[in-house]
């Protein structure tokens, strides 16, 4: 068993090294995208699939992570130049760190916010939770729009130092994966699954459901923040509009396709959805069907993905992996 896991790890690391050095920039950018979305979806799956708390907030935490990392890594001179609407706040100018501490700070800020948020949010269950967290995602965007001293408002931040490459995204993805698996197979992870399957029964067994949910929420927020920081560094430019509900929707498709509660399924889902988004790019462009030009249809890909999501839920609710991991399949073979 150990050998299978180790060889998967070694192959992944070799692949990251090979891809960074030998693939063309376009392929590397797709792989980067896949890795970042895998990080986000892995952490999103912890709260949604493992702890069973259907929440819709990742775009909020990703936005926070992206802004924090961007503000930490931007040099003060650039900040002074860039903030066109109002002068940057003193705090913004004082923030300075290299990339790794900036990423960690992104995660920490998101996790602290998750902790504060969990107090009102986990008083409710089910669909209420979904809508409150959805609202939170909106509020973060509205604040980003309306606090020009911190976020430069709707103009967003540009010229963010582009430090992240496939080593960063790939290795953080691997770390996220390992951390998530360790959380799931720890006593906390078992408690999360108990809360998912029957919250009242879990309470009766002496599990403090509020703390377990908060713990899952904070872990999830931490990695979403880190993923957001990576995203900011990859794109080098961020604006509030990038962190709309569309982002959450993409993550939701990834975890549903891969299987709610399955971490290896999530990675497979990230590869399929992000690869598919790239592959289906032709749908949004001009097409000639038997000599008839259909014109450009921006958004057609998303129509396809939303149909895919509904069909998945209706006919294949368990996704590709169900709630199993890849290693479980090997185990059954023996």
């Amino acid at each position: 068993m150990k050998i299978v896991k180790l060889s998967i790890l070694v192959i992944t690391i070799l692949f990251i090294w090979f891809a960074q050095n030998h693939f063309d920039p376009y392929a590397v950018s797709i792989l980067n995208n896949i890795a970042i979305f895998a990080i986000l979806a892995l952490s999103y799956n912890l709260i949604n699939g493992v702890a069973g708390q259907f929440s819709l907030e990742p775009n909020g935490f990703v936005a926070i992570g992206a802004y924090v990392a961007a503000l930490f890594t931007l040099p003060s001179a650039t900040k002074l130049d860039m903030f066109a609407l109002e002068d940057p706040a003193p705090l913004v100018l004082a923030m300075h760190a290299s990339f790794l501490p900036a990423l960690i700070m992104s995660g920490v800020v998101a996790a602290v916010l998750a902790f504060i948020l969990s107090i009102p949010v986990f008083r409710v269950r089910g669909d209420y939770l979904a809508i409150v967290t959805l609202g939170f995602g909106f509020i973060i965007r509205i604040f980003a729009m309306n606090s020009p001293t911190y976020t430069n408002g709707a103009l967003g931040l540009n010229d963010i130092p582009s430090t992240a490459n496939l080593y960063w995204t790939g290795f953080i993805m691997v770390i996220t994966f390992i951390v998530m698996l360790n959380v799931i197979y720890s006593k906390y992870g078992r408690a999360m699954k108990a809360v998912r399957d029957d919250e009242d029964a879990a309470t009766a067994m002496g599990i403090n459901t509020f703390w377990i949910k908060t713990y899952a929420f904070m872990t999830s927020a931490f990695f979403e923040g880190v993923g957001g920081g990576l995203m900011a560094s990859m794109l080098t430019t961020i604006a509030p509009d990038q962190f709309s509900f569309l982002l959450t929707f993409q993550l939701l498709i990834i975890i549903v396709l891969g299987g709610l509660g399955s971490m290896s399924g999530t990675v497979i889902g990230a590869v399929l959805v992000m690869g598919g988004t790239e592959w289906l790019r032709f749908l949004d462009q001009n097409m000639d069907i038997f000599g008839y030009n259909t014109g450009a249809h921006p958004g057609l890909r998303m129509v396809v993905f939303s149909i895919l999501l509904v069909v998945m839920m209706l006919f294949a609710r368990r996704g590709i992996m169900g709630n199993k991991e890849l290693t479980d399949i090997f185990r059954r073979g023996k």
Partner: protein
Amino acid sequence: MDILTFMQQMINGISLGSMYALIAIGYTLVYGVLRLINFAHGDIMMVGAFVAYIAHSSGVPFELAVILAIVSAMITGILTDKIAYKPLRDAPKISLLITAIGISFFLENLFNVLFGGVPRAFAAPDYLTSIIHFKGIVIPMTVIIIPVVTLVLLFITLWILNKTKYGMAIRSLAFDIPTVKLMGINADFIIMLVFAMGSALAAIGGIFYAVSYPSIDPLMGIIVGLKAFAAAVLGGIGSVAGAVIGGFILGFTEIVVVAFMPELGGYKDAFAFIFLILVLLFRPTGIMGQDLERSRF
């Protein structure tokens, strides 16, 4: 702040609140029966507004366009239920929520592909857009018509729920679906009726929105729908009267805050959620005080 401006803002608040109320009733009806937040409800509203716009701008008289819009919103609502919710009645709640989000996203992007994301100006007929000057207060006709129509529709809805055979069936479904089926009531038909009612009201709300803020776009349903939902929870979800009260409170707050504290104007859209969070923190059952698990309109 003089009394005239105050009156002016109150009138605007009533109008905005009516729109939220109309949309909130749909959330409350569906939640009352199925215990499901119909995420696609805001987008059904968008469908209504768009159909009205397309029909009206291609030469159909406004009144007929409104009827077309209501009918197409009802069809969309019923189809949403049949395709995305009905097969999952016995599935875990999370599956239903995911298909609801899928349908919502599908409608937004479908209309985006078909009609483009550029906001379009909604040209309402003159008798709706005309303006009355009354003792120095400027009153657009819409501001009078919208609350009146809302009240009429509210009474019709309450009458259907409380006085008719179908209303009784809807109320009984809210208690216990399996038992109601055993009584020989066609539960699926009644649920269809609930979706049709909610969608029709949403379409009217959407048209009002399009007339008062004369612009529509495929994504208009998201934020209005969410606010209407916040209004429904504020009033006590599952209660029709509560939805209306919540809608008015939300509408007033938005108008008053923007009028008296213009520097907070950018945060207008955040109020609904701050309200929602506060209500859930301190009084999760909302103003009308229905028990969340056992609502009864």
